[in-house]
């Protein structure tokens, strides 16, 4: 059988991307029809040694972020061996939610885990963890190796997974990859957002409200109601699955083309627009009070994209090594 092969590999995952891929009937059937599923540890019984013994790899799908030195080695090995490397899911593409731990040192992370372990043993002080792989600097896949396709989403929605497989098949048929190709729109969510603002001529954000503080009106723009929606700085393509169920966009589809840092764009635009009609009345003090309502800055601004942010790059560059200034 000379079907091209495909391997699906994990870094730091939650399992959601595997479920998303398995759930996408059309995509999964096309894969199984056209490709030889050589490695997928959740679906096919195989060991890492089986993966390593493959002669060539046509398509490698990497889910999850690069957390441990093992993940890093694997990513680099895959890039060498594979024709097409795919960053599947927001963790792989941008860092994802585990990225929020990137600012905590590996040592502190381990200590944190140790401090939460409880035991009924009388020898409480002696707690041993199983042998853990070495934690390295947390990164998104594209920061470790070049990727050919990026499939964003937490997890990627079915429509996007199907589109990804179509692109994959085209590449396999011989089309030249122009990477990295992101399977998402290049405009912001606002372009096709189903919610209509009250004032079609301009956007006004009178204050900042946390979700539980507002009685959220359906069909009305979130920002107008003071709810911080990341739509304006996030790629479209997800068919607004969160927005349609009365939850603001949290940014899992990642930044618009040409940007890396979602948070800086957000503070430059949306947060600068807050209470703009009352600036002179509120003055710095009043404005600061309103901005302080954003308590979880990293969680809101960088929920999925922290390891790809400019500020993270700055931090890495100051630590020396390959990113040194």
């Amino acid at each position, binding site marked *: 059988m000379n079907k091209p092969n495909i391997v699906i590999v994990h870094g730091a995952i939650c399992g959601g991307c595997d479920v998303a891929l398995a759930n996408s009937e059309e995509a999964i059937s096309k894969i199984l029809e056209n490709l030889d599923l050589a490695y997928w540890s959740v679906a096919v019984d195989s060991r890492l040694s089986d993966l390593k013994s493959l002669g060539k790899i046509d398509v490698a799908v990497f889910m999850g972020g690069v957390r441990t030195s093992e993940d890093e080695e694997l990513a680099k090995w895959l890039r060498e061996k594979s024709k097409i490397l795919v960053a599947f899911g927001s963790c792989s593409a941008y860092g994802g939610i585990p990225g929020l731990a990137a600012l905590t040192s590996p040592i502190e992370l381990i200590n944190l885990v140790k401090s939460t372990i409880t035991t009924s043993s009388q020898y409480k002080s002696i707690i041993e963890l199983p042998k853990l792989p070495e934690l390295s600097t947390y990164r998104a896949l594209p920061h470790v190796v070049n990727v050919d396709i990026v499939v964003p989403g937490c997890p990627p929605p079915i429509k996007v997974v199907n589109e990804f497989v179509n692109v994959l098949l085209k590449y396999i048929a011989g089309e030249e990859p122009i990477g990295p190709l992101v399977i998402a729109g290049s*405009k*912001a*969510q*606002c*372009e096709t957002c189903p919610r209509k*603002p009250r004032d*079609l*001529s*301009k*956007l*006004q*954000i009178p204050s900042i409200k946390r979700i539980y503080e507002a009685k959220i009106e359906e069909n009305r723009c979130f920002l107008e109601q003071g709810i911080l929606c990341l*739509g*304006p*700085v996030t790629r479209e393509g997800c068919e607004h699955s969160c927005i349609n169920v009365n939850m603001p966009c949290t940014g899992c589809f990642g930044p*618009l083309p*040409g*940007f890396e840092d979602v948070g800086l*764009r*957000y503070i*430059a*635009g*949306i947060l*600068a*627009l807050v209470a*703009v009609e009352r600036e*002179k*009345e509120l003055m710095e003090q009043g404005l600061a009070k309103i901005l302080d309502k954003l308590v979880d800055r990293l969680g809101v601004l960088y929920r999925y994209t922290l390891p790809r942010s400019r500020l993270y790059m700055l931090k890495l560059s100051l630590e020396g090594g390959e990113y040194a200034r």
Partner: protein
Amino acid sequence: MSLSSEEPRIGVFICHCGLNIAGVVDVKKVVEEAKRLPHVVHAEDYIYMCSAPGQELIKKAILEKKLNAVVVAACTPTMHYETFARAIEAVGLNRYRLEMAVIREFSSWVHVDKKKATEKAIKLVKAAVVKVADNSPLEPVKSRTVRKALVIGGGIAGITVALDLANAGIPVILVEKTPTIGGKMAMLSETFPTLDCAQCILTPKMAEVARHPLIKIYTNSEVVDVSGFVGNFKVKILQRARYVKIGDCRLCGFCERVCPVKVPSEFNRGLSDRKAIYIPFPQAIPPAYVIDKANCRRWIDGCDKCLRVCPTKAIDFNDEDKLVEEEVGVIIVATGYDLYPAERLKEYGYGLYRDVIDSLQFERILSAGGPTKGLILRPSDRKPVKRVVFIQCVGSRDINHLEYCSKICCMYTAKHALIFKERVPGGEAYVFYIDIRAAGKGYEEFIKRVQEEFQVNYIRGRVNRVYRDPKTGDMVVVGFDTLTGQLLTVKADLVVLATGLVPQLPYELASKLKIPFDKYGFVQEAHPKLRPVETVTSGVFVCGVAHGPKDIAETVAQASAAAAKAMELLYSEYIVKEPLVAVVDRDLCSGCRVCIGICPYGALELVEGKAKVNELLCEGCGACVVACPSRAIELRNYSTKQLLEMVKAVVK
């Protein structure tokens, strides 16, 4: 977006400025370093770059080396940008392909360490070089102007602006909400401090407006829509039906006599009645009666008494509201004020007792043409007033009502007290005050005269309560005298409240004009000291109390100022603007509308779902450029790319 099409060929010219620069900065070294910068094909230094021979060097280099961009490292642009811009234009290079590196004010004049000053100068030159490489060769933005002005408000402010403009040859459209021009000044009896008769100085101006060939008056009208921008405004004016043909009305008054409907007179502020067909006051302009449709019985039971007695058939019940469209180049807002509703200060009993009145009502009582023909009689029983109490700061300077000072009340209260004392021999007048504000010419002297010569009793303290003694029918005023520390009870026939001024500009109109206003509703001027009659919206001006509390002299001065500013705009054939404005790339725009809210000038609007910049309104601040979540907007010659390169150039 702003990349020039050809490869940059930059010439760098370092000025010594005598020893001002060369004494500290190693200019030869700067030339050397400049030559090594990308795209720099020529670099030289000279003792005085701004001199004629210095400029010749630049021109020569442009022609010989085919330079398409120039950096002059010298003093500040404020000093010599224009000098060098004209020099390069003389040899055919666009003036926007010039940047200056400020190595004098920012380096040689402020540092002593020569090595460091030179290093800094080199960095400043580097930044200027990377910026100029991406400057677009721009042309100024031009737009024609309609030589016509719209004045909103027909009080003394609006009248003054209209006459100033019309006398200078500019056609004016004057729109007034009420059936006559004249405003609040027409209600006044005398004006302080000269005690001129208000009507005597106002009515000739009103007549001048009426007969001026270049002024078109719309009364009983309101501006309901404004679109366009400076030089080219399109306005819609709703002209309400008057039901009386202005040209045919002879002011005979027969209609008024037979009209069966009586309602409180607005002009006399409820102190007397008028009919449903009425003229606000005899000298009204336009000189014609008007029917108040809401109260007229024509539409209830077909009453036509007035129609039958009118000798000239001037009454026309078929009249209709009209929507008129006009094109104008400038708009001047002169919407004036009204008094704060004094009934909100429950302690004073306004609205509860007929003998507690506000200052405009007192003006009507004083007025010879008013409800009491100038006799000072109190409203409840027409008893002659022997004792009057004036209360200042009613609503003003009060954290619960109006926080600001209404400016004119101290003066007009003194005027009221003086006139009262003149007309009522043996009369007693009391004034309860907090402070006396009398800053104008002759004002302090006027107050002293009222206190000393006319012996008006000034009591420093607040009034706690006003009520009527049911036994005697007297008004009783209870207040505190802070200077003696005693509680006072004053019995009076009449109590006059010096109520605060509030602006009358409707919120919808301000939005349509895109002019900001403060929390009280007063129009916000462009700069409180240097641009007091302009608003941030180009082409829209403000004058009079619409801008803030002020007296007639200041109002007239401001009105003339607004007229002068308007003329400045209208007398140029084109409005020419610096082209350093923002530009939207529609392909990148997602229609999120963040930019529209950020722009202080209202220069951005949504057109077919995407943002668009009005180049005439954009002032080039760049707030929208930073705010755009999609980076779809850039600022000409100050793009994000240029600034990023400049940052790298100075820091690396």
